[in-house]
Each structure stands twice: as C-alpha cells, then as structure tokens.
C-alpha cells in the first residue's frame, strides 16, 4: 500500500476491525482537488481478498491558481473471489471549479464490487462549477459506462437530466445475484444492468436524502444482507 500526497491511505487497526475484510480510510491530506491537480489512485484487490475503502470527508472540488481543471482517476481491479466496497464521501462541485472524475473497474469472473458516488452541485446557495464524472465497470465486456455532466444551468434544471435537484447519487452493485426486476420510486431506482450487475440511482435536494434513498434501493438487492 503506497500513499502520495494528497491522497493518504490509512489502514484501520482498531477493535472494530472485522476479521473478514480489510478496512482502509481514504484521507485527503491537503485541500484537493484544486485546479491543475491530477490525482490518481490504483487499487488492486487480489484473489479472495476483501477490501472496504472508505472516505472520511467530502471531496470539495475548487478552482485553483493554475489554469485548467482538476482530474481524479480511480482505477480498480478485483481478482477472482475478491471484493471491493468503494465508499467515498460526496464530491461537492464549488463555483468556478472544473473537475473531471473517472472511476474505472475491471472485475474478474466472480469478483464483487460495490461503488458509490454522490455528486453535490455547489455548497448551499452556490451555483456549481463544471464536473464530468464517469463510471465504468467491465467484466470482460462492458457492464456500465455512464458520464454525468453538471454545471450547465439549462441542463441541470431540465426535467430530463437532474430536474433541478442539487444532489445525484449512484451505486454500482456487482455482488452475486442481481435483482430479478427493477424497483423504483419517484426519485430513486435499482435496476439490473443488461449484462450483469445493477445500478441504484437517486436524485434529491440534499446528500442525506440521497444517502437514504441509495440505502433503501440497496435493501432490494439480493445481496443486501452482506453489506
């Protein structure tokens, strides 16, 4: 395990540590990402290993002194029999920030992945800057690829896109059996993907509501008892 400023990886050795998986906290050691930052994190989960990687604080994307936006690339590989739960705290896109986030996962045949993303359009009362966030999950072939762009007011407000909601949540679940049928409520859904895996989506005006909606959606997943 190797950290590099500003991404610090802190293994959890407390008494709450569960024997069946390793828990690592992802700590941002400085203010990041700022404009001009280019952050990369690679996670390899070996055969039969189980890792939970958790954030401890929101990621706040800010404009920097240097021109150009900021980028954060997270690449994960999960080997046979392994599992990864990637649970960062929300990403807040502040005014004038230009941030690009990419999460790419490559899964072995029976590897398991749970990956959550919550995007917040600006701090309270603030118009968001620009963010493009891409989720990509492959198992041999593609399971999910989705890029969400925020920061164009005419698109953010469109009933087809974010419908004026400030917070978007998504949670990919490739965890054993998939839900047989989609489950939906007006502002969240849990849907089986075409070629394996499932996706929970939620829209709301605050991150707490989105978190609850994703929790509710996940209750409908056949593997929900294992999280």
């Amino acid at each position, binding site marked *: 395990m190797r950290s590099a400023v500003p991404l610090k990886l802190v293994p959890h050795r407390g008494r709450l540590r569960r024997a069946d998986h390793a828990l690592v906290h992802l700590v941002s050691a400085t203010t990041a990402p700022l404009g001009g930052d280019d952050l990369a994190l690679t996670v390899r989960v070996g055969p039969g290993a189980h890792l939970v990687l958790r954030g401890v604080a929101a990621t706040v994307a800010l404009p920097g002194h240097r021109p150009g936006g900021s980028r954060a690339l997270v690449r994960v590989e999960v080997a046979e029999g392994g599992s990864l739960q990637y649970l960062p705290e929300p990403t807040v896109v502040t005014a004038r920030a230009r941030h690009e986030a990419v999460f790419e996962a490559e899964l072995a045949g029976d590897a398991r992945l749970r990956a959550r993303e919550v995007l917040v359009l600006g701090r309270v009362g603030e118009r968001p800057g620009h963010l493009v966030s891409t989720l990509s999950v492959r198992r041999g072939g593609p399971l999910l690829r989705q890029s969400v762009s925020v920061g164009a007011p005419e698109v953010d407000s469109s*009933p*087809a*896109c974010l*419908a004026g909601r400030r917070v978007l949540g998504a949670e990919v679940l490739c965890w054993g059996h998939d839900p047989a049928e*989609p489950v939906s409520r007006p502002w969240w859904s849990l*849907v089986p*993907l075409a*070629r394996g895996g499932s996706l929970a*989506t939620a829209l709301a005006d605050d991150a707490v509501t989105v978190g609850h909606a994703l929790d509710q959606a996940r209750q409908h997943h056949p593997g929900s008892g294992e999280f």
Partner: protein
Amino acid sequence: MDAAPMDATALLLADSRFPGGGHAHSGGLEEAAARGLVTDEPSLASFLLGRLRTAGALAAAFAAAATGGGDLGALDAEFDARTPSPAQRAASRAQGGGVARAARRAWPSARLDALLAAQPRPHHPVIVGLLVRDPRDAARVVAYLAVTGPASAAVRLLGLDPLGVNAVLARLAGEVDAVAADAARHARTAPEDLPAPGSPALDLLAEAHDRHHREEVRLFAS
C-alpha cells in the same frame, strides 16, 4: 455547418409517418407530464434540450459509429452499458425492431441480414446508422427523433398548441445540428471509447413509467 441535403433514406427514417412504431413512445414525456414536471412550452423546451444533450447525443454518437462498418455486436454491448434503465433499453430495442421490420422490405442487404441474425431487436441508433451510411445524417436522424417524439407526445398529452410546440422544435434546430456534428466525429471511434452521456432523471422517469404502465393504462409504451 454542412449544407448538403440529407439523402431520402434518412428523411424516411426521420419521418413521423415512417411505419417503425416510434409513435408509441413518448421518451419519458408522459411520466414527466403526469408528475407536473412538464406543463407548458417553456418546461417542454427545457425537457427537450436536456434530452437532446444527453440521450440524444448518446444515440447520435452510436448512429454515427454504426455507419463506419465496425463491430455492430460491440456497439450493441456498449449501448447496453450506457443504458442502465431496462425500460429505456426495451424502448430502444422496440423501436430498433420496428425499423428492422420495415428495413427488411425497403433496404435489404447482407449487412442488415448479418445484424438481424445476431440481434433481431437491435438498438435503434445502431440500425439507423447501418441504413443511413453518412455519419452526420445518421446522427441527425436520431438526434431529431430524440426531440420530435416527445414533442408530439406533449401535444397529445397536454393539449399544447401544435404551432407553439413546432416553434419550440424550430428553436432547437441549431442544437440538433450541433449534436449531430459532434457525433459525426465518432464514425471511427472504437465502441468502448464512445461518449456515454447519462440522463439520471430520464432513467428514473422511464422506470416509473414502466411501473405505471403495468398498473394502469398509459397512452404511450415509454
């Protein structure tokens, strides 16, 4: 902007009288109207612009890529991955299947047969791209349909003035052309590298529509 006229195949596919079954789909508009998210011309214009820049741009890129003679099976898989909502996938395949039925008679070809042998219900933009050949025209057809279908559904569901709705569409024409021009750059892009613009609210609307469609009578299939 390229001023060359579209070929007649593209015009036929974009025509609302084309017998491909597209008239049965509202593109999420019926659910948006039922929830009061679209009520008038301004809210319709907002819905259509968002739909065009996301689902429309996605379809346009895939239609352009399907003109290039590339791997149509890979395009099918990548479009699936970019369409998380099962209801949206079903709507795309229903409309692609409708085009296929017409195409077997109208535009028979070995490449069409090969596509339909592998996938009898192809995604709509993929079969449109196969039939139209010119990347920008193919992209323009699906980008145009991404807004005209919901617009005509709005006239029927909300009783909006057809002339007013037509003016909303006319104001979007430049956006449709811009989306098509951008998509045309992807004629030779590898399927896995194609853009993947998501539209979370459309996905939620499509799933809710599907649930209501099973519980009660809805005018449109999606």
